């Protein structure tokens, strides 16, 4: 469905990611794993057209979209739910969701449509008239996803959907991601919470310093020894069901580096 090959992109002509290749098949979840600053968001922004590609190709459903503008990609069904929620704070929840269907044309974004999408989210259904800026962090994340769903995505790029959320909300988000896949929406899930995302994903791609260092079946990535140590925590993180795994991993990494003295 989505094929990326040899992609390089960055800011002001300086590449942050380079030679990135990955494939997302129909109805698949691909987990993108990497530390802060590894280039996950840059990749997401390039795929959705916010950043120009410096090299490489992006094809979506057989069409080369490397040069297409964001609007064209949205119309094709490639939807990016950005990191940090980015809701329209001064617009109401209903207006936010409705804007998600901007490219569909006036007839397709009726109030029933908006209601139907909102109904999937307990947190939103009865706050339709509230300003998005007044929602809690978790509600805003739900709103961002709901807004993405309104455009009838075939592929959803979720950039750090669990960032800064309480454990129960994180679990809810992951449950939702699973449901969306079961509906046939392909998902590129960029996460620091490596354990949870790999458990739900079909494939895993590990990105470090802007390059893909490992990719394969999710279970294989989960089992790769180096990955376990770097992103999943040395003890396997079993105690809290994988929560905070990435933090522990980074901490362990830091400790090791300090011990090595570099």
């Amino acid at each position, binding site marked *: 469905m989505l094929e990326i090959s040899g992609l390089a992109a960055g800011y002001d002509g300086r590449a942050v990611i380079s030679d990135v290749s990955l494939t997302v098949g129909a109805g698949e979840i691909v987990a993108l794993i990497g530390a802060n600053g590894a280039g996950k968001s840059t990749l997401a922004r390039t795929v959705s057209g*916010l950043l120009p590609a410096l090299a490489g190709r992006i094809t979506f459903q057989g069409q080369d979209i490397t040069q297409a*503008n*964001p*609007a064209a990609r949205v119309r094709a069904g490639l939807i990016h739910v950005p990191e940090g929620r980015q809701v*329209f*704070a*001064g617009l109401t929840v209903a207006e936010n969701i409705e804007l998600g269907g*901007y490219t569909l044309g006036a007839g397709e974004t009726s109030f029933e449509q908006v209601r139907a999408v909102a109904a999937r989210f307990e947190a939103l259904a009865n706050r339709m008239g509230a*300003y998005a800026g007044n929602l809690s962090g978790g509600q805003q994340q739900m709103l961002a996803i709901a807004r993405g769903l309104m455009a009838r995505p075939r592929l959803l790029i979720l950039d750090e959907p669990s960032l800064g959320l309480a454990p129960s909300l994180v679990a809810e988000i992951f449950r939702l991601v699973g449901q969306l896949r079961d509906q046939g929406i392909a998902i590129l899930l960029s996460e620091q919470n490596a354990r949870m995302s790999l458990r739900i994903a079909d494939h895993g791609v590990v990105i470090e310093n802007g390059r893909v260092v490992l990719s394969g079946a999710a279970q294989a990535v989960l089992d790769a020894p180096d990955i376990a140590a770097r992103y999943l925590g040395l003890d396997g993180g079993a105690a809290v069901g994988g929560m905070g795994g990435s933090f522990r991993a980074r901490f362990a990494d830091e400790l090791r580096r300090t011990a090595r003295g570099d």
Partner: protein
Amino acid sequence: MLEAVQIVIGGVLQGCIFALLAIGFSLVHRVASAINLAQGAFCIVAALLTATLEQSYDVPVMAGGLVAVAVTGCLAAGLGAAVFVPGLRRLPTSSMFILTAGLLTLLEGGSLVIWGSQSTTLSSFSGERPIHLAGLLVPTQGLWLVGLTLVVTLVQGVLLARTRAGRAFRACAENPLAASLMGIGVGRMQLLSFVLAAAVGALGGVVMGPITSFQFDTGRMYTIFGFIAAVIGGIGSPLGAVAGGLFLGIATQLAAAYVSSLFSNALALVLLLAVLVWRPSGLFSAGPTRRQDVRDEPRVQRAVIRIGRRQGPVLAVIGAVLLFAGVPWALQGSGLMSSAIITLIVFVSVLGLDVLMGYAGQVSLGQAGFMAIGGYTASVLAVQFHLPPLLGTLVGLAISLLAATVMALGTMRLRGLYLAIATLAFGLLVDSLTVGLESLTGGPSGLVGIPPFSVAGFRFDTPLRAYYLMAFVLAVALGLLAGGMRGSFGRALMAIRADPLAAAALGINVPRHKLAVFCISAGLGSISGSLYAFYFQFLSPEMVGTPLSLQMLAMLVVGGEGTLFGPLFGVALLTLLPTLFQPLAQFKTLGSGLLLIVFSLYLPSGIFGVLSGDLRLLGGRLIAPLRVLP
């Protein structure tokens, strides 16, 4: 009673024009989170175009008006695509002010070149005879104006609140990044709002043309009053724009009739300041208040220009030699000597602006107001009370510092846009006082008979003496500031510029620093204004009016803000060029608008930024031989 109603009718008509402009401001602000100061200029361009069509080609006024609105719309589309939208993409909100001030100047300059400086008017759409209504006189054109305002208000109200495009407009202003992820063409929406606003302005200009006279620079006045109306009403709120416009129109007309026509502007400005201080989001605020200007965040960045520790002193010595020996030797006796002196005087004031804007990041559109306070206080004391110039300058300084303190305390909570408006209002208030207090200041025709500056009987009455006086003042100011900005005070200011909250969290007393920097800036402006008056031995309101504030802004940006020395290039360029190219004087405004746009878009670090690499190299070469010595 009848008279009062007649005045209110006049106020409503005036208010309709303000409302149309305010709607334009609101529209652009809604989509782009920016203020388009060129708004009023589109009005005048359309009106002037209609006048030409009517007077030279005998085109009926209504047909000509429609053609003019269409042409103005195309012009706006071109300027929007080439200047406004690219600017939005790469400049922070405060620089958008400067960029659109550049557009305003450009349009004014263009109008001056094409149409000259004569004022003109249009003929009424449906006859010149006013309607008599229960003893009241209503010009028929007034009905057209009221009708247009109603239609525009309705159309844009429906457009924004009820349509998909309206919601997309708002989404662009709220969060451009997320908007483009929704598939909204953000750049296209921004351009559309810019063109729509210009078209509304142009329509307003054509319809009000018959009931007023206008010339190339009338747009400035409309920009300012439309802007004030938008702020009073609550910027971004369509209803507020109309309410603000009508309120402002009626209030100023009543004040003009019952108080004094000279103070009617002052009243408008006091109203504005009051609204800003007590209810910054306006009488009708649009949506929930934003805690932080989101748009500012990713775009606050600037090139860091550093002259090395060792190159610095070398360049300082070269600068001092040039300043005290080179320039006077080269220019003595030539006509350029006077330009050099004016450059130095204005530079002192721009230095203040640089500390305020370049270092502390506070936008000011009212620097000339402090020059006026300093200039008028010192010269009135000298002319009417025969006080020595030095004493007068100090009294002016004291009053300026007092005014700056009041301003700073009153506007402490305001940032960016609102601070800029408050400073603009301050500048305009001083303008209207210098015109209005005729018995003291000589009013619009100016104050004559000001003695030259003197200290203990020594008169600085020859160009060379005046030059050395200024060079001395400048050297002292530069020396003190260069020291201050390199130390912890300068670093604290830059921290406040980058993020006031983070700065406060670091333990920087933000209010105190803001107050200090306001006072430094006002003080330098005041001293510069006093010396300006003593040098010319004459002072008129337009010498130290708001246009000068905008010009000093251009000088700062062109020279390079946040560099102290950089603005000198800007001041010199914009002062000397018109003198050097006297026959091209009519292109002066056009040229400075163009310079302002080009520099703020493409060379944000100014001439100094471009030169600094070379300067560093030069400094390095000069100290290279010294390095060989042990």
